[in-house]
């Protein structure tokens, strides 16, 4: 818990925050609307005498009173997917539409990817990228189990992501071919991070914590978010999220791209209790617009911790 002490000045009710971090999380699942609707899943759980409690902000997220949701029929059928409640937030905020082209920059193991696909009614093109081939095989397994058919999976370094495989500009392909992908309508950058917010699931997550690790991962985050802004159409939307509290990995990353790229932080609809982004940290000050970001602390909604911001690409 010691690394969390540094956040005492940022958090209103710091003792409640620490208490919540020490409580384990119960097991949540997301209803996969590609294969079943919420009512049918509820009926299946009712028939099997498995209790459930829907999240008050999202009827598709259920907390189950079983520790092994994987041994239920709804799981076998791909009607549900184990996913922590707060981790279901960024795709909802991104709000992708059926028929759009959407990039999931750091997608494995695919919980948010498959949720994006469901929000798109499994139509349009969802490009799910990750640099880790092993974790990508977990993503592919999850996507197929959940019946996702609108996804293309790529294995690239997101910082230098190339659209060349999709027939973009430099290719000799026919200019008029509307199957080519030149840019995305939306992108999710659910960035690799120090994962402090997952402490309720992984109590060991802070064992390896160091300021050096924070700085090095922040460099990667800036690189991925920069590429996402460049690969998204003018006026397009990007959601930047992490499961960590460190301003170096959150507001400082936004502040960086606000200076280097043509984009702005915009108001977002966050249906969970949260605090605003911080503009002052450790002798640094950030662009005032980063206040529009959301910091979700474990004591707010009795979930894991998260950070979520919405950017609009300049027109």
């Amino acid at each position, binding site marked *: 818990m010691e690394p969390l002490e540094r956040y005492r000045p940022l958090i209103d009710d710091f003792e409640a925050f620490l208490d919540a971090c020490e409580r384990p999380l119960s097991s949540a699942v997301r209803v996969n609307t590609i294969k079943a609707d919420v009512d049918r899943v509820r009926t299946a759980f009712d028939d099997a005498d498995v209790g459930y409690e829907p999240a008050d902000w999202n009827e598709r997220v259920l907390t189950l009173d079983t520790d092994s949701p994987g041994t239920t029929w709804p799981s076998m059928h791909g009607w549900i997917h184990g996913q922590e409640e707060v981790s279901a937030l960024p795709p909802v905020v991104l709000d992708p539409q059926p028929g759009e082209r959407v990039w999931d920059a750091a997608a494995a193991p695919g919980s948010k990817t498959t949720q994006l696909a469901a929000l798109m009614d499994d139509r349009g093109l969802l490009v799910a990228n990750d640099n880790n081939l092993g974790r990508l095989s977990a993503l592919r397994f999850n996507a197929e189990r959940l019946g996702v058919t609108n996804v*293309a999976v790529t294995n690239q370094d997101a910082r230098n992501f190339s659209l060349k495989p999709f027939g973009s500009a430099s290719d000799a392909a026919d200019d008029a071919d509307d199957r080519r992908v030149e840019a995305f309508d939306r992108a999710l950058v659910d960035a690799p991070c120090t994962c402090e917010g997952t402490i309720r699931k992984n109590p060991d997550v802070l064992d390896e914590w160091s300021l050096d690790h924070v700085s090095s991962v922040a460099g990667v985050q800036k690189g991925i978010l920069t590429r996402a802004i460049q690969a998204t159409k003018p006026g397009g939307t990007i959601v930047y999220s992490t499961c960590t509290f460190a301003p170096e990995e959150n507001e400082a990353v936004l502040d960086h791209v606000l200076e280097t790229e043509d984009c702005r932080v915009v108001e977002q609809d966050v249906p969970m209790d949260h605090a605003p982004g911080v503009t002052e940290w450790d002798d640094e000050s950030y662009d005032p617009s980063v206040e529009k970001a959301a910091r979700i602390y474990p004591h707010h909604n009795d979930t894991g911790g998260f950070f979520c911001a919405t950017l609009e690409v300049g027109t």
Partner: protein
Amino acid sequence: MSGEETASDADDAAASGGDLRQNVGRRFARLPDTAAEREVEGRATREEVLDWWETRFGVEPTVFDEYTFWEKGAGKIWALAGDVVSPIEVEAIGMKVLRTRQEHWKPTTDAVQRFGRDATKNVIELDAEDARAFAAGEDLEPDWDGDWGYLIGAHEIAGGVEPIGVGLFTHGTLRSMVPKGRQRDL
């Protein structure tokens, strides 16, 4: 990451092993519409794929109206909702649905779960006990007077019949084809 997010089926493991050795294994090509447009010998056509789903399971071709079909390597067919340029070098595109280029085409478990609800024949409805055994990968000896070959194993749940996976019926035995990573002890 929860426990259910880590498994991988043996097919996939073999495929990615191949990918590491030769990049050509990541190249997907769109199926030609008809035999007249076929450029690669032995490659299935869209027409044949639609015809196979209709002949074998009674799935109407219109179910696949918005889909394109892709082959990677020899005989593995993927279904994509929508379209992209062809050929395309990526790790995966849509869902692996079918193995062709053998005498009997074989659908994947994930494909029959996704498209098997529209099936009107060669669906074997299992009782609760058999359904559990089938999902666990066990062989069954069901009463079945219909066709031999690949069947869709299904059961009644929450007000409807839902496909579980693929079974191979021969000589009175239904062998569950549910891959190891998808098997469950329910």
